[in-house]
């Protein structure tokens, strides 16, 4: 996808016409205006489109009931645990599969099929087999978020520059040292996988909680929907959005601090 942007072996103006760049923050203005208009001109008794101030009130009352923070904590804990497990499994398997070059053709179709299995369909299956509990949620979240990490680690190892792999052999590195050099050079790939996996893991966590009514933000959303408490539904959408932003920024921070030594990543 990004191939054409890096095709700059020639050309002193080798840039796209408007550059990639980061979108300026004032681009949030339309959203702010929309919310303001909603607040000012919205129907205060609307069932479908409650005004934003009612969302905040709903958050507030959830907080007073004490359910908000315990739910956020439950969701965060499932998310964090599964990210750790998924990263460990994904990196290990990815490195193993990356070192057997002949495995690609034989494994690709299976991996492709498994990683495209929608988590939503797996949740009920896991619930019926493992029962409705946190362990089940963990299994599902790990299963769906392990693929990006596994695959991008594998391709990072497969694409290790031949120079590097021959210098590993050349320096007669073995065992632990060898592995640590491999991990080090595959790090950008691993992080790329984590970057894709993290938002996915959050969504699947919420999904598992939502479908099986397991404690957490997802379950709060479900009960709000079942009680037809629309202000609370919107409020929890906001909470979920904030969680997603937090996850994204944490991943960015980790990525930035780890990759500082690696220079720019070309994927």
């Amino acid at each position: 996808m990004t191939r054409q942007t890096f095709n700059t072996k020639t050309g002193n103006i080798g840039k796209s016409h408007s550059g990639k760049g980061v979108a300026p923050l004032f681009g949030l203005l339309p959203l702010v205006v929309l919310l303001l208009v909603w607040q000012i001109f919205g129907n205060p008794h609307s069932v479908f489109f409650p005004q934003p101030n009612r969302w905040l009130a709903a958050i507030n009352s959830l907080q007073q009931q004490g359910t908000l923070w315990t739910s956020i904590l439950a969701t965060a804990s499932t998310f964090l645990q599964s990210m750790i497990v998924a990263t460990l499994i994904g990196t290990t398997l990815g490195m193993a599969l990356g070192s057997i070059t002949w495995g690609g053709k034989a494994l690709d179709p299976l991996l492709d099929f498994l990683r495209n299995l929608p988590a939503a369909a797996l949740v009920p299956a896991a619930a019926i087999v493992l029962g409705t509990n946190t362990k089940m949620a963990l299994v599902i979240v790990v299963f769906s978020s392990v693929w990006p990490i596994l695959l991008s680690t594998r391709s990072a190892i497969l694409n290790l520059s031949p120079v590097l792999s021959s210098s590993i052999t050349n320096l007669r590195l073995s065992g632990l040292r060898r592995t640590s050099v491999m991990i080090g050079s595959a790090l950008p790939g691993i992080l790329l996988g984590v970057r894709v996996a993290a938002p996915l893991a959050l969504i699947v966590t919420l999904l598992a909680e939502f479908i099986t009514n397991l404690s957490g933000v997802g379950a709060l959303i479900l009960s709000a929907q079942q009680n037809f408490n629309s202000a609370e539904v919107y409020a929890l959408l906001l909470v979920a959005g904030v969680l997603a932003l937090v996850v994204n920024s944490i991943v960015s921070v980790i990525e930035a601090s780890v990759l500082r030594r690696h220079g720019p990543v070309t994927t």
Partner: protein
Amino acid sequence: MAPPKRQIRLIGWIAPTILVVLWQLSIDVGLIRFRYFPTPVAVARALYTIALSGALYKNTAHTVFVALIAWAIASALGVAVGLVVGLSVPLWKGVMASIDLLRSLPIIALVPVGVIIFGFTLKLEIVIAAYAAIWPTLVNTISGVRQTRIELLDVGKMLRMSALERLRKLIFPSSLPVIMVGLRLGLGLSLVLTVVSEIVGTPHGIGNALISAEQALHPGQMFAYILVVGLVGYLLNGAFLYTARIFSPAERSSEITR
């Protein structure tokens, strides 16, 4: 040279076969002991039953139909809006942060909003799936257009092309591979979210059949439907790539797969 295609296909079957055999054996031997974990044979039997009863066809047809409609809507909207936002730098600056923020809202938290507004209807399925599918298409169209090389735009000016000509002959074709990637991701998401709204409560389609099988404690049928969802996704993806390959010269299809 790459090995012939048929050979790849044959090799590709080995790993799944081993997996299925291991699955069957480990249950037979008692290595895995869950009350509701079906063996592959049980799943195959269930698949046969639902295929025979017509339920499989009916549910699959519904889900695929909804997913495709939602995808078509999302694609049309995503590409159109994406072209406009991508072409205008001031507009991009003015709205892109909003698009990024909306895109990062966990889609699953939006499902209940849809349920409140539409109830468990066909409309809900289509709206939710289209909403999910529009983002990759929109974002990829925007970035594809914005990635158009300055040299290419200069060529257009140099040859004194009109703005429309430049869009049609230069900008659109040069961003097409990126747009296609977005369309492909959108297709997958559209299917998944259709299934999600069926699982959550819409009384049709594969998702609904799946959840009914769970409640009726028919794990075999349930796993059969999961297999079907996976297959449908796999086939839709394959069909998309195949069609894309027909309409574009060889080199470009590899960019779409990425």
